[in-house]
């Protein structure tokens, strides 16, 4: 008995570290951490990839864009995903990272059904989110106070929204929510609310999608930048990726993922874009 217990204990002591070491030695293991917006896409792509490459081992985690960027910069993971440019993040040395934009996602302003507004100009939207306009009457709606629901400070969607709409002005101090789902739920049930969510979450009859300067929020309007509210979904590697990682990124950028998976989730294929945007928000035509 005594010996038996000892053997068991020894076995545990020896086997557990071996197992851990075994995992970390696995050449094919790719850990992908960061943007929760990109998580479902990469997870599905990883599963599909695994079916074709049984030796691959792709682990996908959320955690947020900031986590993704700092983890990849620290070399703790192979790929960090982000919906903001690394160059715009303090504490991140973008020169160290290699950027692979893999998809484009649109952002749409949404309002409660009862506000009586379906279209806003960029100026009106900015005025609402900076707190200058406080009643829907002022933008052609009902006599109803405006309740701004912002996204969490530093979230990718908020950063994109503020860069493109507020152009440097400070947003009004308001309620903040960190998930698309919660925002949608709150806007659909609270009179007078306005917020913004990414396209994949906007397929809901209980909220009023707002068009911007007369342009409908539609994936067709993004490639030529007619709908200006969109952001890249980036995959970042630290320097040149290793072989396995490079192969997987190539797979994500390949036909199968870009034509099937990306539209299925509600994103736009990176290859459809007719314009490119840099971290300073300068727009250039592709191929000109």
């Amino acid at each position, binding site marked *: 008995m*005594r010996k038996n*217990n000892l053997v068991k204990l020894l076995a545990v002591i020896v086997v557990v570290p071996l197992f851990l070491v075994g995992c970390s030695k696995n050449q094919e293991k790719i850990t992908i951490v960061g943007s*929760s917006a990109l998580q479902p896409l990469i997870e599905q792509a990883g599963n599909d990839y695994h079916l074709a490459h049984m030796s691959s081992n792709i682990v996908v985690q*959320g*955690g*947020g*864009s*900031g*986590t993704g*960027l*700092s983890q990849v910069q*620290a070399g703790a993971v192979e790929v960090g995903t982000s919906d903001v440019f690394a160059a715009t*993040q*303090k*504490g*991140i040395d973008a020169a160290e990272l290699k950027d692979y934009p893999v998809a484009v996602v649109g952002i749409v302003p949404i309002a409660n059904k009862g506000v009586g507004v379906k279209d806003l100009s960029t100026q009106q939207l900015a005025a609402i989110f900076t707190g200058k306009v406080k009643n829907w009457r002022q933008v052609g709606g009902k006599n109803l106070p405006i*309740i701004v629901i912002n996204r*969490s*400070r*530093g*979230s*990718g969607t908020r950063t994109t929204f503020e860069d493109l709409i507020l152009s440097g002005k400070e947003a009004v*101090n*308001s*309620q*903040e*929510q*960190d998930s698309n789902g*919660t925002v949608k*739920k*709150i806007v659909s*049930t*609270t009179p007078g*609310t306005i917020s913004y969510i990414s396209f994949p979450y906007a397929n809901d009859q209980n909220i009023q999608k707002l068009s911007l300067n007369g342009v409908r929020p539609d994936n067709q309007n993004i490639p030529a930048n007619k709908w200006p509210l969109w952001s890249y979904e980036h995959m970042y590697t630290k320097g040149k990726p290793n072989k396995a990682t490079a192969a997987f990124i190539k797979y994500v950028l390949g036909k199968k993922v870009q034509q099937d998976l990306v539209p299925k989730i509600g994103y736009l294929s990176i290859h459809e874009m007719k314009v490119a945007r840099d971290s300073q928000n300068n727009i250039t035509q592709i191929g000109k």
Partner: protein
Amino acid sequence: MGKKKQDLQKVVEKAIAQQKVPHVKFKGIDPQDIDIARLTKPSKETRQERWGKGLTLLAIGLIGILIVAIIGFVGLRGLATFFADRVNVFHFLFTTDWNPSAGKEHVGAAAMIVTSFAVTLLAALLATPFSIAVALFMTEYESGRKVRLLQSVMELLVGIPSVVYGFLGLTVIVPAVRKIFGGTGFGILTATLILFVMVLPTITSLTVDAFKAVPKELRKSSAALGATQWQTIFHVVLRAARARIMTAVIFGMARAFGEALAVQMAIGNAVLMPANLVSPAATLTSQLTSQMGNTVMGTLPNNALWSLALLLLVMSLVFNFLVHLIGKKS
């Protein structure tokens, strides 16, 4: 055979010769056959003892290291705001401008601190009378099936995940508060109502223990003096259980103070000094959970969040300290 063993052999032989160990029968045993080596080795029981003790010490050591590591890490990160980023501690504690990504002049956590304390105190204030009532019912007035039923209801309430409470709050309590009290429905009041349900079982079950700990003799003496049951409860049981009830309330407050998700969904999460009970506000925990993923390690916004975490850690230590203090007094 070494000298020591030879000596031992002699001692054993002498003992057998003189029959100095009367309860052991040595008849028929040749002193030569006694295996001194085995006798001097630790027995199976001794070895078990050592193993057990060793394993326990190992576990305690690991947990000790873990605790020190957690406190050390949170402390190190949390204090970096003040030492590395040179934010003034008083500025952090007493100003309300919270926008750490804009620079060190914008790291004021007062609004969150006030809100955290407000929801905690209000939830405890609201839940305590109900908890005492339920506990009295369970210990003084009823016994048997009804008590067991209530007990399982309380256990059920504890088992519900906080995200469910948050979602219920968002769907049911937020619109109700908006209709009855005005505002957007998000705010301290809504968070308090949710926390009320969440801390109720904690406070109740500990209060039940408090009442059970009151000696039967006290109740009997009171009855013998001619007191009614209510008089006994009010003047004897409640008084005798006072310290333990306080402990129960503090445990409930600790739970309310640390709750993140349910509060985050219902309080609106706007870092503003609360103007009233129905204006959107943010607690320490709701800011932490909603922003941690969006900040980059080692930068001021990240460190500032760790400072909030440190504040939470310190507060939970204070709650623990209070519990011990009250326990000692009683």
